[in-house]
């Protein structure tokens, strides 16, 4: 809207938007603040906002109680691994759908998305048995594959929408220039789709990082990621607010930081490529 707006209007907008933004962000802010309090300060009445004795003790206790680094490492491997594996499988599939569409392309895409609707709990026990048979229970490889399968439809869908924006003539030009299919995808399509691929990776890393059904039900100790790390605080440790906050902050910090640094790509990705 190329219309000038009065400073007064803008001030009101700003104040209102910031108030709403802070309200929405408050639970996270409160958690982070509480993680630096002593347990007494954490439940003090009236609540202490900034003026308390800042301490790092909770982090030390949490780290001692449960080996944070191991959970973190599992989360990174599982979220990163499942996303990369998914991308590798999805790029050729999305190429096919975007550039060699047939009458069935749309049906296949819809079918793929519909596998996302299969309630995980409905197949929980079979997955148990399959995992036991394959020796995947409580292993990272098992979770990488399951989360890859869960997110694959979304990855394909997103890449498909991004690829469709690329003019087919450019790929044909590559073909005329003597590029093989592999070169066409590797040297022309993929570099052109980098922003879209980045968005796809970011969103799916977050989805995998936060996935909390299979990661809770198919792991015990060895492969448990941060979702499980935090679930162990359900009770009664949950009553120790400062420690719960420290553990929570440690669990969400990596994704929060990554999300803020890559905001632009992420915002694009968060719309799942469905809205331009």
């Amino acid at each position, binding site marked *: 809207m190329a219309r000038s707006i009065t400073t007064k209007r803008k001030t009101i907008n700003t104040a209102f938007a910031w108030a709403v933004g802070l309200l929405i962000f408050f639970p996270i802010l409160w958690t982070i603040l509480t993680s630096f309090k002593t347990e007494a300060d954490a439940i003090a009445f009236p609540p202490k906002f900034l003026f308390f004795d800042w301490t790092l003790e909770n982090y030390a206790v949490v780290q001692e109680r449960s080996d944070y680094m191991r959970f973190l490492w599992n989360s990174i491997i599982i979220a990163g691994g499942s996303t990369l594996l998914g991308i590798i499988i999805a790029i050729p599939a999305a190429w096919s759908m975007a550039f060699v569409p047939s009458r069935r392309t749309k049906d296949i895409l819809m079918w793929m998305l519909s596998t996302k609707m299969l309630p995980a709990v409905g197949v929980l026990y079979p997955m148990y048995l399959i995992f036991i048979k394959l020796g995947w229970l409580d292993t990272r490889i098992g979770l990488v594959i399951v989360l890859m399968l869960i997110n694959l439809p979304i990855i394909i869908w997103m890449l498909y929408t991004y690829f469709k924006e690329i*003019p087919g003539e*450019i790929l044909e*030009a590559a073909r005329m220039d003597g590029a093989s299919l592999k070169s066409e995808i590797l040297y*022309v399509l993929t570099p*052109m789709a980098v922003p879209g691929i980045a968005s796809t990776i970011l969103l799916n890393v977050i989805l995998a990082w936060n996935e909390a059904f299979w990661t809770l039900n198919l792991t015990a100790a060895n492969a448990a990621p941060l979702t499980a790390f935090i679930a162990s605080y359900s009770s009664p440790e949950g009553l120790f607010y400062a420690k719960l906050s420290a553990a929570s902050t440690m669990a969400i910090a990596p994704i929060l930081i990554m999300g803020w640094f890559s905001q632009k790509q992420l915002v694009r990705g968060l719309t799942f490529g469905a809205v331009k």
Partner: protein
Amino acid sequence: MGQIELQKVTKRFGETEVIPPLDLKIGEGEFVVFVGPSGCGKSTLLRLIAGLEDISSGKILIDGQDATNLGPAKRGLAMVFQSYALYPHMSVRKNIAFPLKMAGMDQAAIDAKVEGAAKVLNLASYLDRRPGQLSGGQRQRVAIGRAIVREPAAFLFDEPLSNLDAALRVNMRLEITELHQNLKTTMVYVTHDQVEAMTMADKIVVLQAGRIEQVGTPLELYRAPRNTFVAGFIGSPKMNLLTGAPAQAKGATTIGIRPEHLDVSKESGDWQGKVLVAEHLGSDTFLHVATDYGQMTVRVSGEMSVGHGDSIWMTPDQTHLHRFGADGLRIA
């Protein structure tokens, strides 16, 4: 190098036949233009030659070799697309070098060739820019550069000038013609613009609904159109086509006379009419005239003063009168 031969080539998309059986020979070093109204199958035909589409039946020979089942990369042809289809993430240098890199040429040879092409096309100072930073004409030249470094058996152009503005189009037309004269490589050029066809081609192929209406040099097509479609399509302004009494008087179903082959007088002549619009171009004036046989166009000298509502007489130059039979074909 650079002979292309189509033998009984057909193309169907599902049930619809886009190209009925078609035979065509393109000789070495020829500049051949496919021209026709939009949807006539000229671009499809080019894509069949390029290998970007499969033919449904028939055979394509390139330099005598059967290329029917070869992929586009293997046919040794280069193509310039309507949208230029430059790689937006690569510099001009890398764009031009891409086909050479794909061919596995070593870096020094690639550099030399790219520099050479850039010099010919006046791109030397733009080599490190991205396509997005170039003007339309420059992009066009990059696309051509990418095509010439491959030293292909033939160049294929798919309406390469349609995205340029009018002045630039005339310039590029000259540049491409000049390029052909220098390289002497076969060129196949698709356009819907008959002016481009007339000015550039050694040989024009007029297409309608996937069928070849006529093949010939520009002047052959101008002087002796094989049927009413070619007669109406080639030449600007269009040939006047008359039916009814004047045609019967000449023993034909339709007669055609070009606007430049009509004599105009204010006193007497064969056909009488009223001027609707006079378009003054300076050197020439085009008159759109209402007659008993329909609307006609006449070219007169710019000196002549006529205007809306004037009554004039027109007399066709008998040696340039074209006669067509009931089947639309020319009567010799």
